[in-house]
């Protein structure tokens, strides 16, 4: 029983920590990308259209790395492949 509680609490903490760390890295990178893009737009205002398009694309690509971590976090929380075996184990042990 103890080990089942340990398993579930560790998996919940891991799921939360996964997405938190991923968002930390992704937001830092997106902030740097956006700041450089704004600087370039201010330096040359007629290139705004091209830079905006590229900026949106690169923001979405950087965000997708955080989305991979979110997908893993969802798998840990909602479709955990080990819950079945853990529940089987606690049935056999006292």
């Amino acid at each position, binding site marked *: 029983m103890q080990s089942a509680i340990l398993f579930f609490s560790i998996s919940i903490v891991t799921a939360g920590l996964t997405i938190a760390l991923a968002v930390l890295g992704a937001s830092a990178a997106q902030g740097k990308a956006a700041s450089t893009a704004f600087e370039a737009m201010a330096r040359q205002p007629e290139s705004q259209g091209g830079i905006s398009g590229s900026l949106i*694309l690169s923001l979405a690509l950087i965000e997708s790395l955080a989305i991979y971590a979110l997908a893993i976090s969802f798998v840990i929380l909602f479709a955990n492949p080990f819950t079945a075996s853990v529940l089987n184990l606690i049935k056999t042990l006292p």
Partner: protein
Amino acid sequence: MDISQKILLNLKIGNFNVALSNTFLASCISALLFIIIAIVLGMSAKRGKPKKLAYIAEMIYELLNNFVKGILGEKGKSYAPFIGALFGYIMFSNLLGLLSPLGIPGLTAPTTDLSVTASFAIIGIIYVHSISIYLRGGLNYIKHFFKPSFFMFPINLIEEIVKPVSLTVRLFGNLFGEHVVYEITFALISFGIPVLIMALGLFTGLIQAYVFSMLVMVYLSELLELNEGGK
């Protein structure tokens, strides 16, 4: 509040158990909506007797052509219909997700289902590879795996396999995350505040459709090697 996949109908065809889900019905509804709008817009621009809707149809045509020509060059106009279809289908599917709190069986975002996003990615990648084989020949296609150096073959192969996986997970993750936040917000406060989440969902849906089709075009331009004087 239930975010699991709801199965509407369980068929048994021969030896196969087919389960038609909520998202399958939603993808059919979104495709039908897109087809109807596209036919109405197209028929309004009849030669000789165009209606007023032809302004909007021509504007959409110009936008799509500029979008495709920006990455694929002048000869890229022939790929514009497929890219437009992909963009429109994904955009309508994402926007259907804004109606999900109503609880009506067919009105959710089909892209919250991993199978639907995987099929979009597989279709896009099959399109890109088959065009590159058709235009540049099978031998050139196999040789491009060995291009920078002979030992780059595993890395190129892994890159080609990761492309559809990344397209799938990006679209699925963005929309499923948005769906979960939306359902949670509606469960807490049903009036007023969800409008902000709806606006975020609208924005995210459009951006993800744009990024998906832009990435398919970038992969196409890579495989056709347009900037190296290929066809």
